[in-house]
């Protein structure tokens, strides 16, 4: 399978070299997610409309290595923003990528910014 974790590395904002212009804000569902393609990678982007916050992480769920996280439900656990995988409901912090209800490896998370009605994702390459 071509799906491996290798291309996905958490990118702190100070390491960002490229701000990739992904899509207009209106293309993303409110309080939900959608998937962005970037250089062969799949990045899940989530719009927390009520809090006016955006998060991004790898679309690959580390549980069974399927490209599904963008289709998961979002919310929070004790204030930590999270996404629940649509396949088996493993939940991941969108702040740190940590698996909140198990011991799976953390997922990679990426910085997001919104400018002029567009969503930009930060990458180190």
């Amino acid at each position, binding site marked *: 399978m071509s799906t491996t974790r290798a291309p996905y590395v958490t990118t702190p904002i100070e390491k960002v070299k490229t701000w990739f212009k992904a899509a207009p804000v209106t293309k993303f569902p409110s309080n939900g997610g959608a998937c962005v393609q970037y250089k062969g990678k799949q990045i899940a982007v989530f719009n927390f409309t009520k809090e006016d916050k955006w998060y991004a992480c790898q679309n690959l769920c580390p549980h069974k290595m399927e490209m599904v996280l963008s289709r998961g439900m979002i919310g929070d656990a004790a204030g930590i923003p*999270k996404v629940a995988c649509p396949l088996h409901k493993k939940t991941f912090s969108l702040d740190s990528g940590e698996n909140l209800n198990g011991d799976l490896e953390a997922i990679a998370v990426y910085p997001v910014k919104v400018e002029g009605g567009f969503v930009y994702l930060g990458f180190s390459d």
Partner: protein
Amino acid sequence: MKTILVIGNGMVGYKFCEKFVSKAPADAFKLVVFGEEPRPAYDRVHLSAFFENEDAKALELAPRSWYETHGIELITNERVTDIHRTTKTVTTLSEKTYAYDLVVLATGSSAFVPPIKGVEKKGVFVYRTIEDLEETLAYAKTLTSDGLPKKAAVLGGGLLGLEAAKAVLDMGLEPHVVEFASKLMPRQLDTEGSNILQSKLESLGIHIHLNKATNQILGADHITGMEFGEDDTLDVEMLVVSAGIRPRDELGKTCGLEMGTRGGVVVDNALRTSDPSIFAIGEVALYNQMIYGLVAPGYEMAEVAVNQILGNTESLMSAEIDMSTKLKLIGVDVASFGDPFASADKAHAIVFENKFKGLYKRINVSTDGSRLLGGILVGDASDYNNLLQLYQNAMPLPENPEDLIIGARGEGAASFGSVLDLPDTAVVCSCEAVTKGAICCQVDAGIETLKDLAAETKATTGCGGCKPMVDDLLKETLKAAGKVVKETLCEHFDYSRQELYDIIQLKGIKTYDALLESHGKGAGCETCKPALASLFASIYNETANKQETIQDSNDRFLANIQRNGTYSVVPRVAGGEITPKQLIVIGEIAAKYDLYTKITGGQRIDMFGARLDQLPSIWKELIAEGFESGHAYGKSLRTVKSCVGSTWCRYGMDESVSFAIELENRYKGIRSPHKIKGGVSGCIRECAEARCKDFGIIAVEGGWNLYVGGNGGANPRHAELLAEKIDNKTVVTYIDRFLMFYIKTALPLMRTAAWLEKLDGGIDYLKEVVVQDSLKICEDLDRQMHALVDTYKCEWKEAIENIEIQNRYSHFVNSDAIDENLNFVPLRTQKMPELWKS
């Protein structure tokens, strides 16, 4: 600083570490732990769970980082090969040497493999470690890959053997249990109990062979069968040996510790071996001339050893070890406690047997009638915890002890009284030795949920068998303290589902976001969102398209997500009636999109493997041909299954197909706490299996019999009779009211069967409400149901007519590319997603 070497990182070795770090003063000791297995200690008791998810991490008792945080050096993949008592050192397989002040032997035991000719053949496995399971699974997969039925045997019909048999069944093989003794679970059950258990297991598809001594394993290179006597053989292609355990006592033997005649390192009640610097705990330790193959005694040993090492020499092992056990997982309840066989001079046995229902209960009451000495439960072990408490705490028995197993029928477990009557010293969770006192004390100190209670006391975290009792204790203690026990939805809403139903309806709240704003907190989660989506749907009959991001993953895209993230497509085929033309249309569409097709268990056709982006066009084509959504994804009506009925069948008493179609079309699309299924049979031969459905009707002389609250699935339950010999119109009225009452009052994800079981007064009460209108709500129920029926629309039709909704179905927001990570492999003449690698 003293160095303690813990040899063995299994369940008991880990428990030793856990207890040690919680009690030992910092920096006084250094713990070094050796584990032969490649990973840190895991929950062997729930090893079978590995079959479900193949997730080894989920079984871990603590991650590696836990050992680090507590300053413990954990060396896995390393076997200790020798203990040198004179120099106080040990050496390992990789020839490293470590010095010690104290050694704790926790090497556990290994599966015993009897010396049968041919056991070394390929396809013969044991059942002890994750690696054993991985190998067994891999082998089973090669056997089942051609899709033909295959047999596998389990040698040993004890507690573990039966668990292994269930695992074999789950692997898709036909299990055969081979037992040497004349009964199953010989250490726990009497012959009657074993007989009932045998017929239960056989009904699950597990074959049982008793009184069989295996002479040899047949086959050239791989196992092909087992031979018991001349002309007495069994063809099998795999064997799991579960014939008992042997202590891993080789280290004790070679360094000259005192050993039991049949193995095991002898320890006293302080867990010391014959060398005062060496302790032994768990399944390697021989205490009271016994090896205890259970975790609870092992955990007690860990606790006592820690106390002894830290100088609390008054802490000693109990003189008598309780061997009560409950079989888990297999789909049939079995438990035994105390002395299950108590002889006639010590006790009178009271026995209740119902072969028809597969129940066997035996209690042994002391000859003076005052105390419970032990017992056996087969078929229904729900009273196990209560009986165990009576026995362990030598509590006085009710006047008629038989009430304990027969029960004051209809009134629940009244004969046990309240859990609060237990003495404070009663051990409620035996794995973690948590007493009733300790639990109540935490609740008094402010704990209000089972989760927090588990975190604080560790109760329920072992085998989990005590969960119902701990839950009762929590609720009763809260109640006694005057606190309201509320089934709140989750951390975001302090209301129950029923309260939220009323809030939404009374205040006319229309969206989840508005409700969260006015009555909730935070950003919501995967528990409250779908539960509330279901409420909005039930109250306003809105489709899942309206608030799509609060829907469960399946409802959001109006399709069931499959293993690889593709979806299935299930058009409605009401009552199972389908025309040749419709069959052709489905066939053509499936062929065009290269979908895997299968007839479902619900009498319709499922097409699997559609990509997210293909769903709208597939549905466009189906709808153009007159199909509509089958709601296979929703918590809503699935199918109303029917038999062919009087239109064709020579026994038919009425037109079951026509009625099934009418009912299916009536309730389609209605959202409910869980899915709803119906069935209509044309006569009492019951070919539509109506009595395993949420509502089922059967044609009889003079009308229909209506049954409700049935369930297949994990906990099958037959539906109960709500009304007899009623006409079509009355059937519809009663089902309307029954469903509406359920929709309004059930907990999220609670099927009608579980709801009816919890309903105070059960089916009789339901009859009063639905038939006699005792609550005077029938008018409301009728009106609400009519409103739902009248406002039905096909949500797929809505989706394909709305471009905004269709736009949700592209894999990427910034590209029309398709997901290139999907890989399919051939399966017979069709295809399936590539298997998961981890």
